């Protein structure tokens, strides 16, 4: 997500694929999408990783489309109820939907760019609420067995649908709740010297 060249987050986010359509013939690179052809013909559609796209599209060799994780269908689902959308289905369990979205917003031109940004921000804020509630529940419930029973169902699904960025936040929040709870329950009595 950073513009930092060495940022691991952005390197991973750039690995996501976007649909591209070749405008020209390319010789000898037919193997790229695993096909048997020797050359790529103009008009071929292919999924290329994000890091290839800016160079190629600037030269007008490919035409870039909005990838599936940010399609109108997904955006409508998010507007309806952001919490029930499973981001991990869109980009895979270790994928970064937010990072990918930010890169798409940078790549695209104006009306689409701010549309995607707004979708990202709203989705993040809404999901953050549930994320925090669950994290504190699981942090505090570490030592009690039966309390995860009632929220188990809906909570489990939500947690499966988190993307990598959200999972990191979840772990952070859960860790800090756990530490506070442990400290609170152990005695600070000075042992006799």
């Amino acid at each position, binding site marked *: 997500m950073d513009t930092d060249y060495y940022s691991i987050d952005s390197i991973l986010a750039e690995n996501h694929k976007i649909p591209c359509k070749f405008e020209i013939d390319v010789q000898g690179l037919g193997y790229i999408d695993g096909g048997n052809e020797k050359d790529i013909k103009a008009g071929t559609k292919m999924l290329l990783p994000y890091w290839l796209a800016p160079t190629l599209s600037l030269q007008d060799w490919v035409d870039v489309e909005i990838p599936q994780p940010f399609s109108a269908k997904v955006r409508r689902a998010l507007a309806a109820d952001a919490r029930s959308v499973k981001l991990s289905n869109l980009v895979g369990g270790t994928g970064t939907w*937010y990072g990918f*979205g930010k890169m798409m917003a940078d790549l695209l031109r104006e009306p689409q760019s701010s549309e995607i*940004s707004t979708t990202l921000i709203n989705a*993040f804020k809404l999901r953050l609420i549930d994320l925090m*509630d669950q994290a504190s529940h699981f942090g505090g419930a570490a030592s009690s067995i039966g309390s995860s029973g009632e929220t188990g169902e809906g909570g489990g699904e939500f947690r499966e649908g988190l993307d990598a960025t959200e999972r990191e*936040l979840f772990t952070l929040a859960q*860790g*800090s709740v756990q530490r506070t709870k442990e*400290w609170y329950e152990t005695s600070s009595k000075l042992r006799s*010297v």
Partner: protein
Amino acid sequence: MALPVSLHASTTPQELEFIAGYDMIEIMPSVRTDRIRVLSGTYGPLDALRTTKVPVWMALHLKARKKCRIVSPAWLSVDYLQDRLAEETSDKAFSLLPFRYAEIAKLLLDSAAEDIESADKIRLILKDIHEARQAKSREGLHQINDVNLRVRNICALELNDIRPSFVKSMDILIKLSPQAQQSHEEEDTFRDWSMGDDSYPVAADSTMETEW
């Protein structure tokens, strides 16, 4: 030796407890000594007839050797805390409590419970206060945006609790914001930041150790 990952995120509650040990507290010594000179300052002389102010860590060490009796701070009483609890449960904002109330209360209740009136009752009230405030600080996260967050009267432990997730979420929100606004907002982020911090304990309106 690298710092363990669990310590990257924020200070631990044990570290906060240690820092809280530097707050001053009144004791009634049962021995007589000259002035005590330690790295953090000079305290005393201790006199069996007068109360003296010493750091909490020193008070607890003296207490462990049965050389003093600790005078319970004004805010650590059933009435005061019950008033605060009523405020916490009825109001959406945080009530006024000493910045390090949780750590100091724990230190005193664990090592010097006999010097504090109704220690058990106080423990229960404190637990309720603690939970109410924690719930509120979680609530506060719901209003997060990418510019600033004003919280009055938050205390050290709650602050430490929400710090890692809060900082990371704000980071993500800043990155997601449309490019045009980004450079403008980054300047404001530093100027408007008005949440208290452990190293600059000046949360708006929080009381510091000298008041009680």
